[in-house]
């Protein structure tokens, strides 16, 4: 399958500090890839590299079959980036913004732009900077749809949107993907959006890609097992490489298991476990297990601790 984007050994430093290291990532054409990671993991930098806005210090980047170099004009016309709530807004009206965008994109679809402004209730006389954050995101989505990109990069697209506008925006991007085969990359903290929209997932942690692949396969790669040992706690369970995390409370233990569940269930039973019960693990739990395995820890915050 052709890749809409491919990175090999990509690294980027800002003022000597590594922000991304050894990134090898590919997303097939026509898929929707969720990009998740804790704050500061490097998600935005990764997306900006794909646009050719910044140049990597190491490695190669291929977008829509073309190697990114210094120019990248051809690729820019086919890749579109939507940031949540852009900081600097020129003193344009909505209509003027649309007009300038129509000049920048050769595949501009003017009737579609008009329909989108209508559906998203964006009056063309309004000043862009007077729009709410949600309306500004909607405007960017309208521009993205009308420019008919092959690759659409969405950076926190649903931040600051109320639930109705959010649903409308997500429906619109999935409709674009379904109708035109647009490849989508959605960087977000809203894991439930990823569970709905994505068929692939990439997990970024501390500048490294710690997991990527089909969403269903990644969801099936980790399980949770509740076990009860009436006797002594068998320490060897903890050193089992298939068990990536153990939380114990008295005789009850919660195991996070990587790979097939049956061998670990069997191992627990043979060591005297009286209850061995698989429990549901959603993507939020899986994400937490993945980053914790890499050493991520966050203390519980208490307001009354001195």
């Amino acid at each position, binding site marked *: 399958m052709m890749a809409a984007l491919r990175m090999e050994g990509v690294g980027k430093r800002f003022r000597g500090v590594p922000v991304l290291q050894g990134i090898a990532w590919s997303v097939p054409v026509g*898929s929707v890839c969720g990009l998740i990671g804790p704050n500061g993991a490097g998600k935005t930098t990764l997306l900006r590299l794909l646009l050719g806005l910044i140049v990597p210090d190491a490695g190669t980047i291929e977008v829509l079959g073309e190697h990114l170099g210094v120019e990248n004009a051809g690729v820019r016309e086919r890749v579109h980036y939507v940031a949540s709530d852009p900081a600097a807004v020129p003193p344009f009206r909505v209509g003027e913004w649309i007009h300038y965008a129509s000049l920048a994109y050769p595949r501009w679809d003017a009737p579609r732009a008009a329909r989108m402004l209508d559906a998203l209730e964006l009056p063309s006389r309004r000043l862009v900077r007077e729009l709410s954050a949600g309306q500004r995101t909607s405007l960017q989505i309208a521009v993205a749809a009308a420019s008919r990109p092959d690759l659409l990069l969405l950076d926190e697209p649903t931040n600051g949107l109320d639930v109705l506008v959010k649903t409308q925006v997500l*429906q619109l991007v*999935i409709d674009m993907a*379904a*109708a035109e085969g647009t490849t989508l990359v959605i960087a977000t903290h809203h894991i439930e959006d990823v569970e*709905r929209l994505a068929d692939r997932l990439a997990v970024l942690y501390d500048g490294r890609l710690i997991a990527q692949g089909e969403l*269903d396969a990644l969801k099936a790669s980790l399980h949770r097992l509740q076990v009860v040992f009436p006797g002594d706690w068998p320490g060897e369970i903890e050193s089992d490489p298939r068990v990536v995390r153990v939380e114990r409370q008295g005789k009850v233990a919660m195991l996070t298991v990587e790979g097939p569940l049956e061998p670990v269930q069997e191992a627990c039973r043979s060591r005297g476990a009286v209850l061995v019960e698989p429990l549901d693990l959603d993507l939020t739990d899986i994400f937490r297990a993945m980053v914790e395995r890499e050493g991520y820890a966050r203390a519980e915050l208490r307001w009354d601790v001195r």
Partner: protein
Amino acid sequence: MWLSVDPRSPKPVYQQVVDGIKEAVAKGTLAQGDRMPSVRELAAGMTINHNTVARAYQELERDHVIEVVRGHGTFVAAFRPHADREERVRAVAARIRELLIEAHHLQMSEEDLLALWRATLAEWHDERRRAQP
């Protein structure tokens, strides 16, 4: 909507779509010859991934639940016997055995189990009656 999925569930979304459509056909919400929404319509309508819907449709087509008529759309298929019917019936029997084991450990008698079976069946017929226009 007659179909709903829970993306939070560990069950893959495509499997939920397959199961949901099979249930709608079994209940009569969807009848033979009914036009199915297109992949695009269903994906946008439910805000779920279109490749996931396409995968579910492929599986349903392989299972003769729906059929694609080129240039016309996708429809609920006429009943067709499965080539692997015997194998599937054996799988049903294996599931009944699993239920027997579970019932034993819950100390349910055979009579309890049959009563539950009849009650569930009555509920199912009730749901079917309500589902059909």
